[in-house]
C-alpha cells in the first residue's frame, strides 16, 4: 500500500485517528474514580446475624450453660426458669452459683466431705456455701420486706446418680432451702 496515493492517505488518517481515540479512551478509563470498598453484602449478612442473635439472646433470670460435664436431661416440662440459687452437679464437681464447692470422684462426694461419713447425706462444703447464701438472701429479704422463699434450682448432669441428687437436696434442705426445681432442657418426649 502506497500512502502517497490519495485514497490510501485518507485510510491511513482514519486509522491514525482511531488509534488516537483508543489511546484517549484508555487514558480516560484510567482516570475513573478509585472503587470504594464494597461492603453492602457483608452488611446485609451482619444485619441478619445480628437480628438472629438478638432474638436468641437469653432473657432468662439465670444463665445455664451446657458442657461435656454438664449435659442436662431432656424434659417435656413447660415451666420457665425463675430466679433462684443455682446448685449445679456436673460430672466433676458440685457448684453453687458457678463457684465450685466440692469435687466429685466417680460421680460421688468423698466421704471426708460428709458429716456422717460414707453413708451420710449432708455434704459439709455445700452446706456451708448454701448457709452463707441463705444468710445473704435473708438479709436482702429483711431489707426489702419480702419473705425469704428458699428457692433453689438443681441443675444436674443427666448421668448423676439418684443418691447424689438426694444428698444435694437433703443438704440444701438442711440449709433452709424449701422449694426445689430440677432444670432440664426442652425437647423431651413422652410418646
Amino acid at each position, binding site marked *: 500500500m502506497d500512502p502517497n496515493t490519495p485514497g490510501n492517505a485518507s485510510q491511513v488518517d482514519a486509522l491514525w485517528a482511531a488509534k488516537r481515540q483508543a489511546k484517549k479512551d484508555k487514558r480516560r478509563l484510567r*482516570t475513573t*474514580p*478509585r472503587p*470504594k*470498598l464494597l*461492603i*453492602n453484602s*457483608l*452488611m446485609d449478612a*451482619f*444485619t441478619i*446475624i*445480628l437480628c438472629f*442473635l*438478638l432474638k*436468641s*439472646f*437469653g432473657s*432468662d433470670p439465670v*444463665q*445455664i450453660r*451446657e458442657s461435656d460435664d454438664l449435659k*442436662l*436431661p*431432656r*424434659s*417435656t*416440662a*413447660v*415451666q*420457665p*426458669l*425463675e430466679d433462684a440459687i443455682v446448685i449445679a452437679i456436673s460430672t466433676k464437681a458440685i457448684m453453687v452459683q458457678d463457684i465450685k464447692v466440692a469435687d466429685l470422684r466417680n460421680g460421688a462426694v468423698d466421704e471426708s466431705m460428709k458429716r456422717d461419713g460414707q453413708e451420710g*447425706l449432708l455434704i459439709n462444703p455445700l452446706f456451708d456455701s448454701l448457709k452463707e447464701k441463705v444468710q445473704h438472701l435473708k438479709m436482702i429479704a429483711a431489707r426489702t420486706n419480702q419473705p425469704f422463699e428458699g428457692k433453689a*434450682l438443681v441443675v*444436674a*448432669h*443427666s*448421668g*448423676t*446418680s*439418684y*443418691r447424689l*441428687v*438426694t444428698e444435694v*437436696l*437433703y443438704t440444701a*434442705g438442711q440449709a433452709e432451702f*424449701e*422449694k*426445689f*426445681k*430440677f*432444670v*432440664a*432442657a*426442652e*425437647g*423431651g418426649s*413422652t410418646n
Partner: protein
Amino acid sequence: MAKKRRQEEPYEGDPLIPIMNLVCMLIPLLLYGAVFVRFMTLTVNAPKISRAPAQQPPDQNEALNLTVMITDQGFHFKVNPKHRMSWMSQATETASSGPDIPKKDDDWDFDEFRRKLLELKADHREERNIILGAEDDIQFEVLIKAMDYSRGPPEEPLFDVVTLTRGVV
C-alpha cells in the same frame, strides 16, 4: 514537555465502616449471651429422707398414697392397700418382690408405666400426689423421664405433684 501528573483524590473511606465496627463488636457479645437451648423446670418437693414409708399408715386414710420406686429391674408400685390393683405386688418391701412393670429390652417400659398411671388416675380423678424413689445408682435422666410421665400432658395432668423419697422403701 513535562508530563502533568494527575492528582489523586484523597480516599475518605466508606461511611458504613463505623457501623460495621459496631456490628462486629455486637456479634461476639450477643453470641456469648445467646441461648440456643431453652431450659425448663420441674417442681419437686423436698425428699422424705427417712427410709420408713413416707406417708401415713395406709389403712388409716382413704388417700391413694401412690409411691413408685424405680429399680434396676423396673417400676414397683405401692398404694394404700384399699386401692391396690390386681397387677400390683402384695409385698410390702420393694426388695422382696419383682417389679410391677419389668424392664423391656433392657430399658424401663415407660409406655406401660403411663398405662398403669392412667388406670390409677381413672379411679382417682382428684389425686395429684405421687412419691418417687429410686435405687442409689439410677441416673437423673431416668428420674426426670419418670417425672414427665407421672405429670402427664398439661391438658390432662396425671400425678403432677412429685415428692422424692430417699432410696427404695
